[in-house]
């Protein structure tokens, strides 16, 4: 699936995680209960931290950064092992996060 904007990439990441959780857990989707219900939830918009790249927003979860570019490119990588990149997808203009 190709995504071409920040919002499309965000929706794609969130819907993928929610589908995985719906498949593998019986815990109901209830984001207000995220701190103690045991279900995994997409990162929240208020988890944004300083980003070293232009035209990219960076969100932190406990062990990963999710970078999302204005062209829809996104990258998920481990925080303390930058070489461990889980996914690095190109955006609309075929550019990756570190090429923006």
């Amino acid at each position: 699936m190709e995504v071409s904007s920040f919002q499309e990439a965000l929706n794609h990441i969130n819907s993928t995680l929610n589908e995985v959780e719906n498949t593998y857990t019986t815990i109901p989707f209830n984001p207000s209960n995220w701190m103690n219900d045991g279900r995994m939830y997409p990162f929240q918009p208020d988890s944004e931290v300083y980003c070293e790249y232009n035209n990219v927003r960076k969100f932190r979860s406990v062990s990963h950064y999710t970078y999302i570019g204005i062209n829809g490119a996104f990258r998920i990588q481990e925080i303390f092992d930058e070489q461990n990149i889980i996914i690095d997808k190109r955006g609309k203009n075929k550019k990756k996060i570190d090429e923006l």
Partner: protein
Amino acid sequence: MNRLEQLAIDLPKSVKKNFEKSLTEDGTSWLDIFLNNDQRLAIEWNPRLGYGLYINPDNSFGSGPDEVYRNLDILDRRIKMILDTRQKEISIKDLRKLSGKTQSFISEVTGKGQPSISKLENQRDFQLSTLEEYISALGGYINISVHFKDFDIPIDLFDPTDSTNKKELEKEI
């Protein structure tokens, strides 16, 4: 400076840490504390939600914290407890210390002698009713959930209508 940043500054200089501030005033900030080369604790703080402590953060993607705190002093005690002992597991004695209560206090509330409380704190096996009484004296209540391959479900071993603590805490949270 936000409250988590202050906690980071107050940690001993010898403790390796990493503080990451939210871009917004009401967003989530993070503090990572390194216990050694391959173990860390992660703490998130959101002004609306409180503090989440991840005991084994490297096994986690998108899941909630292992422990939740709404009081910075208690979290501070918990962090120091882990740094001092390098033990992440918590005993009922540790719970009492986190709550800032003494054995005498528990003894007074439960009507049991202090030696009994001391003995209980060193046991690894006790009746659920005894545990409930102890936790209740600390001001808390117990929830028990069971987990199977195909489902997770809370079980009701205690009559919830009996728990004044539960009603009061649910009102406060």
